[in-house]
């Protein structure tokens, strides 16, 4: 199945303007940054990005390619607030669907299970219901002692994705994927919620070895694999590498000033992935 092995540019070539794209990982952890950087070099625009948001979302807001973000937060973890997301919101350059992080999980699970919605308590009574007026509640058809008339719950709609982008520690050429860090995040659900799922990985190996529980993705969920060593940089990809805190601070500092950001883009992001990797090793 070597036909499933693609370059980052070929992955991005399968995306279209206006698509809804899910991005795996969490905050500034195991993000498919090489694929995000490939999107930055492309003319893609009008994207809706579903993510537990970190610098993936920040970069796509800064480039103007994300029209709408669907998330519960945007953070760099060791730096609490994602600076480009912050700028975008305060300048009104990006739209937001703001959900409780458990609702986001449930929306992905509903899409993965091909259900129209899943009931959840999260959101009830909060302004998530006010800022997302399309959200509806359902009443349980089953009465119980606490709720004789049936409990009212949020009907979290399926978050169906046109494409998913996730980063794995290892993968094989057929599209089976393995994470070796402490947390799978929701990468399997992102893949199952998507029409087409693309996996970048640190290394494509002939055979996946290690704990069976680490084999998160199987080839039925995956439509393309690309090898991008250090491809989650500057987010973490434990155990291969931790977050590049020094570089992340430079990113956040540059984001605070438009001129500084232009220089940062020119130095790191305007060239291809190889030149990025060379630049960050300097």
């Amino acid at each position, binding site marked *: 199945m070597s036909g499933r092995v693609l370059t980052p540019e070929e992955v991005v070539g399968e995306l279209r303007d206006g698509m809804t794209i899910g991005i795996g990982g*969490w905050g500034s952890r195991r993000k498919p940054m090489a694929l995000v950087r490939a999107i930055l070099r492309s003319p893609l625009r009008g994207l809706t990005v579903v993510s*537990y*948001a970190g610098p993936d979302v920040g970069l796509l807001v800064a480039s103007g390619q994300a029209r709408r973000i669907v*998330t*519960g*937060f*945007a*953070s760099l973890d060791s730096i*609490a*607030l994602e600076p480009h*997301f*912050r700028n975008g*919101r*305060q300048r*009104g350059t990006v739209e937001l669907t*703001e*959900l*409780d*992080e*458990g*609702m986001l*999980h449930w929306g992905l699970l509903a899409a993965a299970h091909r259900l129209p919605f899943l009931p*959840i*308590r*999260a*959101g*009830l*009574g*909060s*302004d*998530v*219901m*006010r*800022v997302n007026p399309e959200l509806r*509640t359902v009443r349980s058809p089953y009465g119980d002692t*606490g*709720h*004789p*008339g049936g*409990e*009212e719950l949020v009907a979290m709609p399926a978050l169906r994705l046109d494409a998913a982008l996730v980063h794995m520690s290892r993968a094989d050429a057929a599209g089976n994927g393995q994470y070796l860090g*402490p*947390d*799978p*995040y*929701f990468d399997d659900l992102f893949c199952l919620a998507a029409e087409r799922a693309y996996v970048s990985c640190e290394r494509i190996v002939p055979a996946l070895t290690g704990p069976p529980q680490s084999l998160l993705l199987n080839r039925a969920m995956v439509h393309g694999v690309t090898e991008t060593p250090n491809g989650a940089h500057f987010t973490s990809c434990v155990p291969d590498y931790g977050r590049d805190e020094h570089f992340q601070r430079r990113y956040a500092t540059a984001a605070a000033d438009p001129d500084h950001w232009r220089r940062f883009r020119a130095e790191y992001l305007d060239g291809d992935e190889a030149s990025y990797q060379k630049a960050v090793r300097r």
Partner: protein
Amino acid sequence: MTGGTADACVVACAEAWRGDGAILASPMGVIPALGARLARQTFAPDLLMTDGEAFLVDEAGKVEGWLPYRQVFTMVAAGRRHVMMGAAQIDRFGNQNISCIGDWARPKAQLLGVRGAPGNTVNHAVSYWVPRHSRRVFVEHVDMVCGVGYHRGSSGVRDQGEWGPGAPHAESPSTASQQSEPDLRVVVTNLAVLDFLTPDHAMRVRSVHPGVELADVLNETGFELVVPDDVAVSRAPSAAEFDLIRRLDPDRTRDKEVPRSAPR
């Protein structure tokens, strides 16, 4: 008195978890984290805590379980958790905001986002930690309800006019739209401990920290607090607790989280 403001705050945070048993304690912030660890090492030994990534670890750092985010969400939904969150804004009924300041559509300041606050508050015990007690934080109305307070019902959309003092907001339990009310425990600040143990769940002064005047607490709060006849003084750490706090935080990082002195 043993220790300073930060030490009194650590003890007040620790007290939030007293009697919780074997549930997940999720402190957000330096002082709440020290409080949770102090509680676990003394009067609440059954508490579970994570390493901030995906492992449950005991006080010695030994891994005792695996708790990736999806499993944290399951613990939340199962109600087996007591979180102490921060608050950029909080109102008299405990509605909390960590999302943004100003109009949501085009905020003056974008903050973190709602994160898990809506789900936390409808599922399990929640306390808050406010390191700088001020009128900027304690407000009449929060700009975005993230953590759900009392009397919100299910729609989340309520006429703000109903929120004034004396408004008929105290629905009887049987008519409260069958929606279970949140379980808000305490709000710990650098000045005081507040709770919601009043007939209509309006915020009340439980205790004032050693060296703090009640008037300071009232002046720094942007709405009317319920004040009991006798306002207690928050307990200072015992000598044993103070030793433990010093061992847990030898570099006194806790002092950086609170202002140097009470406001004047």
